[in-house]
């Protein structure tokens, strides 16, 4: 058994909001010397492309844990809030 985040939508349910609840100012990330969000996010929402020096953030599989909000020391978010009521991750058992 293994957790494979490529298959996260098979075992965790989401009602994805097209209006994102987190908006990342990706240009801030280019100056960042830490990028703790990349390894700390439990849903792999942050990907850093070293060759092109580019950060990609996707909110689709976000588990709304708050880790990125806590570890980012540069306050790179122009929006960080919980999704609108009824949207986002939906735990069924857990």
């Amino acid at each position: 058994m293994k957790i494979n985040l490529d298959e996260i939508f098979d075992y965790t349910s989401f009602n994805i909001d097209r209006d994102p609840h987190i908006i990342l100012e990706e240009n801030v990330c280019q100056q960042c010397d830490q990028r703790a969000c990349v390894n700390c996010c439990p849903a792999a929402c942050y990907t850093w492309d070293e060759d092109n020096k580019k950060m990609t953030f996707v909110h689709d599989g976000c588990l709304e844990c708050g880790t990125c909000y806590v570890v980012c020391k540069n306050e790179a978010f122009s929006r960080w809030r919980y999704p609108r009521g009824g949207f986002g991750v939906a735990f069924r058992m857990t």
Partner: protein
Amino acid sequence: MTVFDAIVVGAGPAGSSAALTMAKAGLKVALLERGSFPGEKNMFGGVLHRLTALEDVLPNFWDIAPLERHIVKKTLTFMTEGSSFSVNFDNQAANQPPYNGYTIFRPTFDRWLADQAVQAGATLLSSSTVDEVLREGGRIVGVRLLRDNAELRAPIVIAADGVLSFVARKAGLRQGRFNPDHQGVCIKALIDMPKDVIDDRFGLTRREGASNEIVGNTGGVRGGTFLYTNYNSLSLGMVLELGSLMKTDWTPYHLLNNLMEQPQIAKLLRGGRLLEYSAHLVPKGGYQMQPELFSDGIMVTGDAAALCIVTGLNLEGINLAAQSGVIAGKTAIVAHQQRDFSKGCLSNYKKQLEDSFVLKDLKLYRRTPDMLHNDRIYQQYPELVCGMMDEIYRIDGRPKAKMSQMILRQVKEKIGLKNMLADVYGGWRSL
């Protein structure tokens, strides 16, 4: 615009306990929850400890609440990549009501608890994310929702919105960034397994349950692993301190995947199937990260107030959340009787928390986060314990060393004598 006697933000254990307490006393209560039902956004390990706070209002709690198993067996394990050493406490006294703890599922349990508040007369508004607090002359007088910018007013707002508590922050009760050393990220795999297989593997019958806390094998990251039995599934998860995790390249799921392959764990999980993957933060800093607990028209409860105790042996949160919710509810009832919603009147909330186990225990364990900040606990000590056991039991045709010399050598090799003495002293003080 609707006017209530009290608004509770968040229908977790803290919020529902507060709403239940106030509704029973006849107050007009709004219970706001961002999930499409209470519990939809919530996960934990987890073991629900005995809820003394609610035994007055729900005397037959264990007969009516949706519980998985009650815990009779507690195990602490020190683990390395290939070996583990466990201490086991099997307690018959925990096998009869009032049980000491239960495994539960939050989407089921939280929904049930919120329903108790609704039956007592509270108004539950689900799918309602609070976005802002309303102020008038410096006091908090209500909240605004993300949906249609709807406004709700009440002379008292209770922030029960969990670990990040944007409500406490927006009300000015928490300032500055969170310290990553004070927060742990938790990930959990819920694993499907037939009840009889669980019973056989863990030595249980009927509704008996087991909990296992594991130290070590977290890639040197400060943190720990838990393995709990539900009725017909297992909860396997890790709590990792963010301040420590962010200094490494590890991801939480790589660490958990490695652990699932550890031979002793793999045997327990064999044949299991992943049902759900979830994550949440835990305010492990406890007393050291507490916001202001009250101000004019507002009180902060549960995780929002960092009322959480993480010792490595145990994780207490829901019991503290429920107790703080009940006390906040009672304070609100008195405030309504006196028609006084000022800071002065609401300071009773903090006083009563200080007189209860909530702040007493939190203070008692205030140094534990410093003790747990010691990196040696998570790698060197598990290696020391397992290394000693290996030498004691190993038969390889060579003469054995004298036990005391062997222990001294192992300590010198793996920890260092000075470090060991400092750790024993620090550990003792923190307890």
